[in-house]
């Protein structure tokens, strides 16, 4: 591709801002200056869809009502492990108001084996939800019960019941269950170890590293199973007409759902349209079509009617994912000067019947250390599958790692902030530490446990990193229309992050028009494929194509206008919705008039995400540089009751070029509050006797409400890297990683005893204080 050289802002304003020259594709626009000099981008522009949300007019998937629509309800297993001898749906089929019943079966007609409580086995479609629920209860199953295990530690024992006990026969490499194609052996329910992470495998020599160490910290940390609880549950409404399946989905990935539905039914992607105008939260769990997608489609096909299939809260809790737990062993060596000499890490965690419980990354990448090794094991248990949860693996990994680093600092007699100044090479976190410590009042911190009285104050901090991920499979289309309409279109969805609004801002900035000129049409696979909203990739992936498509449209428009104004298009510019000749101000036309005079009724352009500027190839979605964060926590601990209350969090973050400062801060609030809840309140209660989740609701599953919300101050630091036409990245996961461990460090500072397991509930505090 032809390239051109441009200069882009580089560094941190007020700290080390400069410029960098990069080769960029010739089709891409010139660099934007820093936010201060922009009109729309970076500003706290109000959410495009706020009006719909505050008036109750926003139609979520759960709100869809189509003509003739039926309501569906799953019938789920109520035992954690069994073979199904028979399943009888006759009574359900005959129930008045029922239109169809579908049983979960493989293409070959095999019934699924039951592996967790809440596993979907069949579904009923009826004229009302009440009837579907009543009829689903009439389905009868005869089980052949089997032994099961739900506890992550019990599952590792050699005599534990095997979760995935079905032999995989006829494996070409001769394997049976337990033998993998690369020859490694699984041990019962234990899968692994995985010895790598995003940035490669082990390095150096642990033995030598620990030999060099003057001090060593060796601990085991534990984190709990943490469910997502998006307020809108998983689900779809499917309307399958011949040759055209429309899926309304509560999803983080319209394109992903479209692809899966097409694959499942072996039909063309063109036959499937997925629409997600509003998604009521996802936090990582809503990427796939799920069981509900194909099931609703089958019921729609069977009845010829649209089918509504949204889960209820209990189903959501039992079957639609959670952040896996972790038992995280860490051994870290350091020299007297603070330098880390060795990090050994080993983790076990369970994502139930699924994989994905690793926690390795933070320990591997946050600080430099020449000797590192990790072993990460997945442990199968008879529980529903885990799912990605805002910074998968990182929030769990940071909980142990950043406590251990604090412990090293203490052993070295150093302040936690000063110690990180020594071992942390990140420039962005250095600035965040300085500004955060000042805003927080870090100097108030006293020695651990030195507060007198029963109610003690504590101060703590912790750091995190998240890679700059993007996906190149991101395309946006821009339309300029006679009559003045400006549209941006992409299948990318907005689950509350503000994607819709930042796309409007980017297009408005590029076209020199007010943001309310721009209509944003997203969340529909009839538009060009956009990225999933996960991994904090959406902003960095779709805003450059949006800008580039707007730029192309602008060039076409200016070309046409130049003829009219008898100007050189290169001399034309747009500011405040006015097109004028920079060399002759009398040559001017309003943006709307220019659109009215277009040769065709519309200009349509599109652009896809290019590799990062400067020839950085997007090998597997990784842009270069990272997103650093530093968070500070102030807590009060009641040492008589064991209750911890978070009073204040100061969160210092970077996300490249922030596109909408209000939305960035809102997402930081969200990440912090979810992290606080991870630290203190939420955990799944699994009954070992029966395999049930006992708190599959929102009153016994302890989510934070208003009284638990601390004062949150956020610091957003612009950090330019000259990598794309917007140079913007996401903030979703970065905001969620450091909070829990910052709180744990603050609790230690308050009471002088470390707590190695979250959530830090009263029983753990009282135990730590030897009061029980």
């Amino acid at each position, binding site marked *: 591709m032809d390239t051109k050289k441009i200069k882009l802002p580089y560094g941190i304003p007020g700290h080390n801002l400069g410029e960098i020259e990069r080769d960029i594709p010739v089709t891409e626009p010139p660099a934007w200056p820093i936010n201060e000099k922009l009109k729309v981008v970076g500003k706290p522009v109000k959410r495009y869809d706020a009006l719909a949300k505050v008036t109750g007019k926003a139609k979520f998937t759960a709100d869809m009502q189509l003509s003739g629509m039926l309501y569906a309800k799953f019938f789920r297993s109520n035992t954690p492990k069994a073979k199904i001898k028979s399943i009888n749906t006759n009574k359900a089929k005959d129930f008045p108001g029922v239109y169809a019943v579908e049983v979960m079966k493989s293409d070959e007609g095999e019934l699924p084996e039951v592996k967790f409580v809440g596993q979907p086995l069949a579904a009923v479609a009826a004229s009302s939800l009440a009837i579907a629920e009543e009829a689903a209860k009439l389905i009868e199953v005869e089980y052949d019960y089997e032994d099961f295990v739900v506890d992550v530690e019990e599952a590792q024992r050699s005599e534990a019941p095997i979760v*995935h006990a079905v032999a*995989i026969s006829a*494996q070409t490499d001769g394997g049976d269950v337990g033998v993998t194609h690369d020859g490694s052996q699984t041990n019962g329910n234990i899968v692994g170890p995985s010895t790598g992470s995003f940035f490669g495998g082990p390095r150096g020599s642990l033995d030598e590293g620990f030999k060099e160490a003057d001090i060593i910290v060796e601990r085991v940390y534990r984190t709990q199973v943490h469910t997502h609880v998006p307020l809108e549950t998983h689900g779809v409404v499917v309307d399958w007409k011949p040759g055209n399946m429309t899926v309304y989905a509560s999803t983080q990935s319209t394109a992903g759902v479209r*692809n899966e539905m097409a694959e499942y039914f072996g039909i063309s992607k063109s036959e499937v349209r997925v629409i997600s105008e509003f998604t009521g939260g996802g936090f990582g769990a809503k990427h796939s079509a799920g069981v509900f997608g194909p099931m609703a489609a089958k019921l729609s096909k069977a009845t010829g009617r649209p089918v509504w299939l949204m889960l209820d809260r209990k189903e959501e809790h039992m079957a639609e994912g959670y952040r896996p737990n972790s038992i995280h062993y860490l051994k870290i060596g350091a020299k007297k000067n603070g330098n880390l000499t060795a990090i050994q890490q080993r983790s076990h965690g369970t994502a139930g019947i699924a994989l994905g419980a690793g926690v390795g990354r933070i320990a591997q990448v946050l600080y430099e250390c020449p000797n590192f090794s990790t072993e990460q094991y997945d442990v199968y248990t008879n529980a529903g599958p885990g799912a*990605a949860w805002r910074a998968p*693996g990182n929030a769990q990994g940071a909980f142990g790692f950043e406590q251990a680093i604090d412990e090293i600092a203490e052993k070295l007699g150093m302040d936690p902030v000063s110690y990180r100044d020594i071992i942390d090479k990140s420039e962005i976190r250095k600035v965040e530490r300085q500004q955060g410590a000042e805003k927080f009042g870090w100097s108030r911190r006293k020695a651990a446990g030195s507060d007198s009285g029963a109610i003690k104050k504590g101060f703590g901090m912790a750091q995190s990193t998240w890679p700059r991920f993007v996906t190149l*499979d991101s395309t946006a289309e821009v339309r300029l229309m006679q009559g003045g309409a400006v549209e941006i279109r992409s299948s990318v969805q907005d689950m509350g992050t503000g994607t819709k609004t930042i796309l409007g801002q980017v297009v408005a900035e590029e076209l020199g028009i007010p943001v309310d000129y721009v209509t944003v049409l997203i969340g529909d696979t009839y538009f060009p494929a956009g990225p*999933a909203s*996960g991994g904090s990739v959406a902003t960095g992936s779709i805003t450059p194509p949006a800008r580039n498509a707007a730029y192309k449209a602008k060039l076409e428009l200016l070309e046409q206008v130049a003829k009219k104004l008898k100007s050189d298009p290169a001399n034309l510019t747009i500011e405040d919705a006015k097109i004028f000749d920079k060399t002759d101000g009398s040559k001017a036309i309003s943006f709307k008039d220019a659109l009215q005079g277009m040769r065709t009724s519309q200009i349509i352009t599109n652009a896809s995400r290019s590799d990062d500027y400067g020839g950085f190839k997007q*090998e597997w979605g990784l842009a270069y540089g990272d997103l650093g964060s530093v968070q500070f926590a102030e807590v009060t601990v009641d040492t008589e009751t064991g209750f911890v209350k978070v009073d204040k969090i100061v969160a210092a973050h970077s996300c490249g070029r922030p596109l909408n400062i209000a939305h960035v801060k809102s997402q930081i609030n969200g990440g912090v509050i979810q992290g606080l809840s991870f630290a203190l309140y939420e955990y799944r209660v699994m009954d070992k006797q029966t395999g049930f989740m006992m708190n599959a609701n929102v009153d016994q599953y302890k989510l934070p409400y208003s009284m638990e919300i601390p004062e949150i101050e956020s610091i957003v630091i612009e950090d330019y890297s000259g990598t794309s036409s917007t140079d913007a990245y996401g903030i979703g996961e970065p905001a969620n990683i450091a909070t829990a461990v910052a709180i744990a460090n603050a609790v230690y500072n308050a009471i002088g005893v470390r707590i190695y397991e979250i959530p830090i509930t009263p029983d753990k505090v009282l135990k730590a204080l030897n009061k029980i």
Partner: protein
Amino acid sequence: MKKVNPIDAKFCRFLKAKNPFGTLEGGDNDWYVLEDSNTIYWCVKSNGAGGPDNGPVDPRLCISGRRCYKQRD
């Protein structure tokens, strides 16, 4: 982390994954797995973490020769 050629790995066409970095693998996209234990896998056909043959869904196992295996186009 390494890129795996799906043809070499002979992953089942219905094996899907979501990486921590948000992208979906399988179907349209290349595979970048095996050394990343944060990835969630599922089978498009069974819509879950157990395959249609009731065995586990795991990139090491969802390969040629397994009963429910289907080759990519």
